[in-house]
């Protein structure tokens, strides 16, 4: 396939630059090889414009059957690696077939592109956006160049954001009531709450609040669910007595969170849970999990 031919030295250098590349915010992104690179950040409805520059190597000419640039939105399932599902694909033809002898620059523009999903790098699934330049050639194989983008979408403040209040317990042993101030948090938010101990008959070592991410991929019988604990935050040390209330204040900023994704293109979902864990002196764990919705709030200019 294409990449087999890539082993040969290509005849030209293809580069992509964005017209607002100097001002555009860049964010770090983990590449497949584990390194992080800075990648320009876009939002839905942004116009993506720039130039593709084809620079043949000294003394070489590039014969081609046309040059095109594509904007791709792809979902890749890791159990089906290499097979991309494109949910967005926009094409601009840059050149008609011909020959390039010297450096040639093609401007391009995708105005107000709809990019409904956010870039996501999960355990079993990846959603990415990229610009793909193809210099189509006949027998010697096409020359391909990719430029990754990161897309993040801001959500408005939710209209309804009720608190989470729940009473749980084990009959005659432990009875608690907890309360988180909201059910929807933005990524830099802080979780406030209280835990009331209504009945305590066990000796506790500590109580933690965990943030868990559940990523489910596939559908039906092929559904894969992967759960990660992203944060473990100790709320309490020791055993409280009846009537005690323990404050909760957890800043989300330090953790690597994404917004909640629900059924992205029927391929995957990412959900977040707050897991309240009590550990007793025999190291038994008692826990209660509550889903919260995370969303990305438009940051202030200052932030």
């Amino acid at each position, binding site marked *: 396939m294409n990449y087999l031919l890539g082993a040969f030295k290509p005849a030209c250098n293809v580069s992509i630059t964005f017209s607002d590349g100097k001002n555009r915010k860049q964010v770090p992104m983990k590449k497949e090889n584990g390194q992080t690179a800075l990648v320009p950040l876009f939002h839905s409805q942004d116009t993506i414009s720039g130039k593709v520059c084809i620079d043949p190597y000294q003394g070489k000419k590039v014969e081609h059957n046309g040059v095109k640039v594509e904007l791709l939105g792809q979902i890749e399932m890791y159990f089906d690696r290499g097979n991309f599902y494109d949910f967005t694909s926009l094409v601009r033809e840059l050149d008609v077939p011909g020959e390039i002898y010297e450096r040639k620059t093609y401007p391009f523009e995708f105005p107000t592109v709809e990019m409904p999903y956010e870039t996501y790098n999960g355990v079993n699934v990846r959603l990415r956006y990229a610009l793909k330049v193809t210099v189509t050639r006949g027998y010697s194989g096409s020359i391909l160049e990719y430029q990754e983008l990161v897309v993040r979408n801001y959500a408005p403040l939710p209209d309804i954001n009720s608190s989470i209040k729940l009473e749980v317990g084990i009959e005659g042993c432990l009875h608690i009531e907890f309360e988180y101030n909201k059910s929807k948090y933005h990524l830099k938010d802080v979780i406030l709450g209280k835990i009331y101990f209504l009945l305590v008959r066990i000796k506790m070592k500590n109580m933690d609040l965990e943030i868990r991410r559940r990523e489910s991929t596939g559908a039906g019988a092929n559904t894969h669910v992967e759960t990660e604990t992203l944060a473990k935050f*100790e*709320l*309490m*040390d*020791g*055993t409280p007595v009846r009537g005690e209330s323990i*404050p909760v*204040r957890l*800043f989300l900023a330090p953790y690597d969170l994404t917004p909640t994704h629900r059924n992205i293109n029927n391929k995957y979902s990412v959900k977040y849970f707050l897991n309240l864990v009590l550990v007793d002196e025999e190291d038994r764990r008692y826990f209660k999990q509550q889903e919260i919705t995370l969303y990305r709030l438009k940051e202030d200019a200052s932030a």
Partner: protein
Amino acid sequence: MRTLAGVEDEEKWLAEGIAGIQHNAFFMHRALDANNLREVLKYSALMLSELRTSKLSPQKYYDLYMRAFDQLRQLEIFFKDESRHGLPVVDLYELVQHAGNILPRMYLLCTVGSVYIKSKQAPSKDVLKDLVEMCRGVQHPIRGLFLRSYLAQVSRDKLPEIGSDYEGDANTVIDAVEFVLQNFTEMNKLWVRIQHQGPGTVREKQEKERNELRDLVGKNLHVLGQIEGVDLEMYKETVLPRVLEQVVNCKDKLAQYYLMECIIQVFPDEYHLQTLEALLAACTQLMPTVDTKIVLTQLMDRLSNYAASSPDVLHEFLQVEAFAKLSNAIGKVIDTQLEMPIVGAMTLFVSLLTFTLRVHPDRLDYVDQVLGACVVKLSSVPKLEDARAMKQVVALLSAPLEKYSDIVTALTLSNYPRVMDHLDDGTNKVMAMLIIQSIMKNDSCISTADKVEVLFELIKGLIKDLDGTNVEELDEEDFQEEQNSVARLIHMLDNEEPEEMLKIIYVVRKHLMTGGPQRLPFTVPPLVFSAVRLVRQLEAQGGDIAGEDVPATLRKIFQILNQTIEALSSVPCPELALRLYLQCAEAASDCDLEPVAYEFFTQAFILYEEEIADSKAQVTAIHLIVGTLQRINVFGVENRDTLTHKATGYSARLLKKPDQCRAVYACSHLFWVDDPEGIKDGERVLLCLRRALRIANAAQQMVNATRGSSGPVTLFVEILNKYLYFFEKGNPHITPSDIQSLIELINTEMLSDNGNTTIHSDPFFSSTLRYIRFQKQKGGLMGEKYDLIKL
């Protein structure tokens, strides 16, 4: 876990903890030097994680805590300097809250919080409130206590109290108080909870460890006491009710006791006075095992000292009815705490009494009320046997004695004797002694029969054998001491009014007569003398008082005296009785009551005849009789003759010759009383003297016969002196020639006795001769008389 481990393990864990702190502190310092905030936070959190251990006892944990504390000071300095870490303090305040473990997180938060307040970028009350609230996350008792004590420490100089930098606008002293109160409440809860940790088998050790931690909790109360701007109103409305609520609700004996103690010590006296009701109400609600009495005692001690400090404050006590409240509270405590040993109740009463005496010295009814309550309590228990309780009762009874220098005051307390009834005999005596000593010390005079009655009721332990007393156990010396005291006491009973005095004497006699043979020798003499003094007083007033009644009264007194002394003679204690008879006889004589005096003499003689067998005692008795008889001039010729005859007769019948001799020449005085109306029977004087001479002679010869030498001539010289006396007094039957021949006789005797010694070696004799010479030289009437004597 730690309770099962040995001390060695604990040492090891402590060492490990310290090493951990030092290790991380090293890296923290490196980061501090490099101004690397991220690293600083990382290593400080790691360092503080060492404090998460559960293996150490409080003492060892404290050691660890102090090491971390020192490091935190460095950290605080770093946090203060924004140029070093580049973050506004508000961001820093958030940043440290990212730490995953709560304990390091809270220590860091408190540290940054104190910087935050100092920067004044946020109202101090908000920061304080946040800190004290967030600390709730640490529910482990020991770790929580130390964390909160750290909070208290770093916030101490940042409270928005009056006059501080942090006061003003929205931050008031109320916020400061609120903060400290809340921290106190939480700390106390944690402290109380320690006892629920671990198995019950180590309860005792736990109690000890808890006790070591108490000052962490108490510190908050100290701070409350020191906050500027907590006025009485706020104390009354906010501080005290909240603190007391916590104290009562924690239902823990150690905490309740300690905290009550703290409250009493920390806050000013006048606050206590104004909030007495609340304070006392709390006292009655404490756990039954709490030593409420010490708490109350301390309170009362403080209040009494306060009252004593200045007379200006006394009206405040009246205003709040301090006594009634205290008294009520004590009653309640005693009623509700049934297990309280009697000594506890007594201690309370002592304190209350001390308080009363200091604050209301004029309210005897209060004092009596206290004693009354004490009686009620004492009656409810069987016999008082606890030595300590006894001591308290003695203290209780002594208090009024000390306060009212006038014992009379104590006598008006109706409950006083009732309390004494509950003492055992030994203590009763001690108490009685105290009473007597108090009277002596203050030189107070008991002047009515009623009071005397009460007094004797009080000291009855000394007056008579109480039931069940084992007489043999008594220490002789103690007994004498006691009885001497009683004797001294009798002299303090005095009244100018003869009638009342007589009543007093009746009362005293009634009591003393119950004393038994051991006591009478001590107690009768003062009584007799007291009565005699009354007699003399009546006699001196003569007809001034109630006319005809007087002789009757006198007679009555003498009757009593007679009976009293009679009791003594049956003890038996004849010598003493004899002396007293003679005293009475003399008194009677002064009152012109011849038959009475005669009767007394008769008694004296009977005693002499029947009871006094010892020859030495006889000699003394005879001399006493003679001496008394000589002075008495009330007798008619016949009576006098009888008595003198008897006396001379007895004199001549003494056992030893020298005694005989001396008694006989003493008798000579019976016939020559040297006053104008006195009897002057010169002839019988001479007879007596001659008889004496004869006896002296006989004595001399007897000595000669038995020893081979005639011994000293003392007797002769003595007789010579008598001759000279009567000669001077003008007894016509004593002639110079008699004297002259007597001198010669003495000289001969002396020569024959010691031929080789010089004459006049006897100093007595030589001074007698010198006297004669002196009189001769002096001339005048006496000189002429003496001229007739030739030496």
